[in-house]
């Protein structure tokens, strides 16, 4: 109760006016007010307290934890379309109508990504219209790195070479639009069987000559 002689009061309303310039705001010290003891502040303007502790404009927490809250970082004034990053336990919509993602997320135009334990997720959409899962990089209990898409292709694009140092398993269709280059493939490096679709009618080469042009060989059986 403001102005009361009662101590240790609970209060229902605190209005802190920032009209006064200079040292004005809400300040927390530990263990007591003094140099180096400012552990938190909430002020309209940056300044320095009477003990020489500098504090910023807005909220400053210099020790402790944020628990049970969501964090939102805006690009300038908080507004629709201005959400830059968020930390949230669950997806939702902020006070300005921006739809945000679960986890530690960043937003840029029609793309967003979110880090959730074990996965880096990618989304398309917008802050106004919401986000659609597009792809993710994740790991599994076996320590595998898994890259998957919701429906799009996976493109490895490099200005230089792409090197696979382990084995390559293709469980789907394998196609190539390039070639081996002039060095070709070393003898004996192609193994396995070919099916009818790729090999045409089964056949056996006999003696004689045949020509290979642009990867197609023709001969007379």
């Amino acid at each position, binding site marked *: 109760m403001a102005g*009361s002689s*009662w101590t240790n009061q*609970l209060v229902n309303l605190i209005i802190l006016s920032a009209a006064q310039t200079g040292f004005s705001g809400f300040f927390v010290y530990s263990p007591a007010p003094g140099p180096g003891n400012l552990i938190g502040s909430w002020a309209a303007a940056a300044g320095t307290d009477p003990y020489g502790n500098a504090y910023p404009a807005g909220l400053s927490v210099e020790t402790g934890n944020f628990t049970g809250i969501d964090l939102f970082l805006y690009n300038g004034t908080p507004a629709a379309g201005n959400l830059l990053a968020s930390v949230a336990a669950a997806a939702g919509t902020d006070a300005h109508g921006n739809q945000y993602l679960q986890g530690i997320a960043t937003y840029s135009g029609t793309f967003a990504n979110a880090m959730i334990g074990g996965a880096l997720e990618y989304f398309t959409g917008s802050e106004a219209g919401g986000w659609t899962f597009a792809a993710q990089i994740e790991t599994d209990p076996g320590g595998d790195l898994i890259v998957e898409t919701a429906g799009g292709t996976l493109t490895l694009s490099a200005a230089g070479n792409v090197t696979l140092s382990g084995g390559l398993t293709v469980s789907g269709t394998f196609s190539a639009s390039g070639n081996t280059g002039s060095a070709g493939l070393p003898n004996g490096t192609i193994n396995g069987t070919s099916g009818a679709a790729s090999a045409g009618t089964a056949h056996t080469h006999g003696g004689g000559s045949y020509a290979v042009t642009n990867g197609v060989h023709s001969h007379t059986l």
Partner: protein
Amino acid sequence: MASYVDLGTPGPNTAGPDQTGRNRGNLTNALTSSFINVTIAVYECYHINVTNVPVGAAATIMRNGRQYSYTQPFGGSEWDPSQPMGLFAGDEIDFLWNVVSGTTPLPVVTAYFRYDQDLAVNKSG
């Protein structure tokens, strides 16, 4: 200049179901005239402490049925006023708590009184 005589306290008063009729169904500390037991004509309450306050409970403090103060302490509180509460013999102080009578813990109010022995009214009788 006042010449105070400390009357001390009649002791702690533990809240119970309201008997004043002003806080029906809730807890009330009724410091009745018989509880205060001061027969000095004019005296003062200069200090009160409240303990055992249930979480979230608040009290409207009445002097003779009129609101005098209000407190919403966190667990307990002390009242050290800039101006003491003036009282006449027979007056009553009530703490009307906004919690139902079955609430625990029961608030305990301890009030301290004094009087000015130089007041003419306190010298007679």
